[in-house]
């Protein structure tokens, strides 16, 4: 089973987590929303997949390029 690491495209903080571990996501679905530069930046599962793991919690700081979730196809 292919695992896909989802990275944060921006440095900021985790504002809201929308998906649960184990949840199956449609392509383009939002996994979580980061806050950066006073904007809500969605982290999306471009090709969809099942959430294998969430690596961050709400309120936590994230760096650009940090893996925030792992999806399984």
């Amino acid at each position: 089973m292919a695992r896909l690491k989802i990275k944060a495209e921006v440095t900021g903080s985790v504002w809201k987590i929308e998906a649960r571990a184990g949840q199956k996501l449609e392509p383009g679905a939002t996994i979580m929303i980061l806050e950066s530069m006073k904007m809500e930046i969605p982290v999306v599962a471009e090709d969809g997949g099942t959430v294998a793991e969430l690596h961050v919690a709400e309120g936590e700081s994230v760096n650009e390029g940090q893996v925030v979730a792992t999806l399984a196809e």
Partner: protein
Amino acid sequence: MTAESADAEGWQSEVEELRLRRAQADALGGAAAVDKHHGQGRLTIRERIAGLVDTQSFQEVGRLTGQGRYDKDGRLLGVTPAPYVMGLAKIDGRPVAVGGEDFTVRGGTSWSGDRKKGGQGGFVEDLAHSYRIPLVNLIDGSGGSVTSINRRGHSVFPGVHGFERSVQLMGEVPVVCAVMGTAAGGPAGRAILSHWSVMVKDSSYVFAAGPPVVERSLRQKITKEELGGPGIAVEVAGTIDNVAASEAECFALVRRYLSYMPQNVWQLPPVANTGDPADRAEDELLSIVPRNRRKAYDMRRLVRLVADKDSVFELQPSYGKALITCLARMNGKVVGFVANNPMVYGGAMDSRAARKQTHFVELCDFFHIPLVFLVDVPGFMVGRDAEAAGTLREGMRSVYVGLQASVPMFTVVIRKCYGMAGMGTTDKNGLDLKIAWPSAEWGSLPIEGGVAAAFRREIEAAADPAAREAEIEAELRAMASPFRTAEAFGVEEIIDPRETRAYLCRFIDAAQARLATSVGPKPKFGVRP
């Protein structure tokens, strides 16, 4: 044989030798070397050229070059071809100069005949220069080799004649470099001296020096992929612009890129009939920007809704993602879109986005491609990392290059337009036409950041400082309506977002006459900051 019968034969025996020599050239480094190359999932240079150019359009030059082997009577036994294949070809019916190293002969290392064939300068680059046609380099060479010391009896001073031609071409004709294998040193440097570059996933690498040199110099053990695969060269460093999934896709991308380019700076880009009505209005544009200012939206979709259908070609899609740069068509005419991406740092210009904009604006200016700025920029990126990355210098360099450019530019303010980065989206040398959507806002800096600083004493003196700050913000925001600036003609027009395409097409069509009267090279004065 009598003289008569020899004459009747004509030059048949020499033509036979020519046929033999051509067959030797076509065999490249021999069947074993070709098989090994194919085994690594790579095409030969001859297959690459055939895959890139119009069918049957390749006219090779220098097919006989190489190292002949002769018996003691001087009869030809065979020829090891020169490790470079090049010539004249066509792409979409237009002539191009094309060449590339042959990896199956000595790993495509440099070759010294009486005249260089290509690589850095050489005949193929002279051809592009003299005939003012685009140059496509298919790079798969290891560059210089220390074994040349053995051959020559001396070491060679770095740099060869030819690189000055490569530099000259940057102001004359489109130069495309496709890295097809491992490029280190000279060939890597050559790849950078281009208007657009591309590499192939899982099969090309580009670096100043490869893993063995890195290990000796720094005691770092690192793989080729980690050192110079697309994950570094394209996504992190931006040294190469785009990545292709396969060699075949790479050729399709090169052809696509050139379809937007004029043959040289003395001509205009080709106009195509895209069949997309100039007055097409998309209802989706009315609601694409959320009313909630904290919410981002899909700027790539916005570009696709405005541009001619299927005409958008994004350059550097995975580098400097706070900015989107695309070649596209509007009513058939080539334009360059520069769009801030609110999904990445709210569209703030960081050092990478600035470098991307600098190159793209200069590219479009040189090749007479009008620019459309779709603006949603809160300013330069802030924070320690951004300062350390030289955002101010890269950002101002981008602004500087924009203020030197003379190609017509159009500013469409979608949402935020603030500060120096905002100024860099306007056509200060030209008409300076700025149109805005009702969602637009602008200023020297965003109100929410500015109020606390500008009204500090007043806020501190208030009974409820937080309430006073919110109150001042609300007062200022009411005055920040784009309609008030339009009253003062500080922005030339506010439009219904659905009118964007029709409005831009009118002006881009009208600008064609101006473009036609200002072709030719553009010398630039001054020193970039």
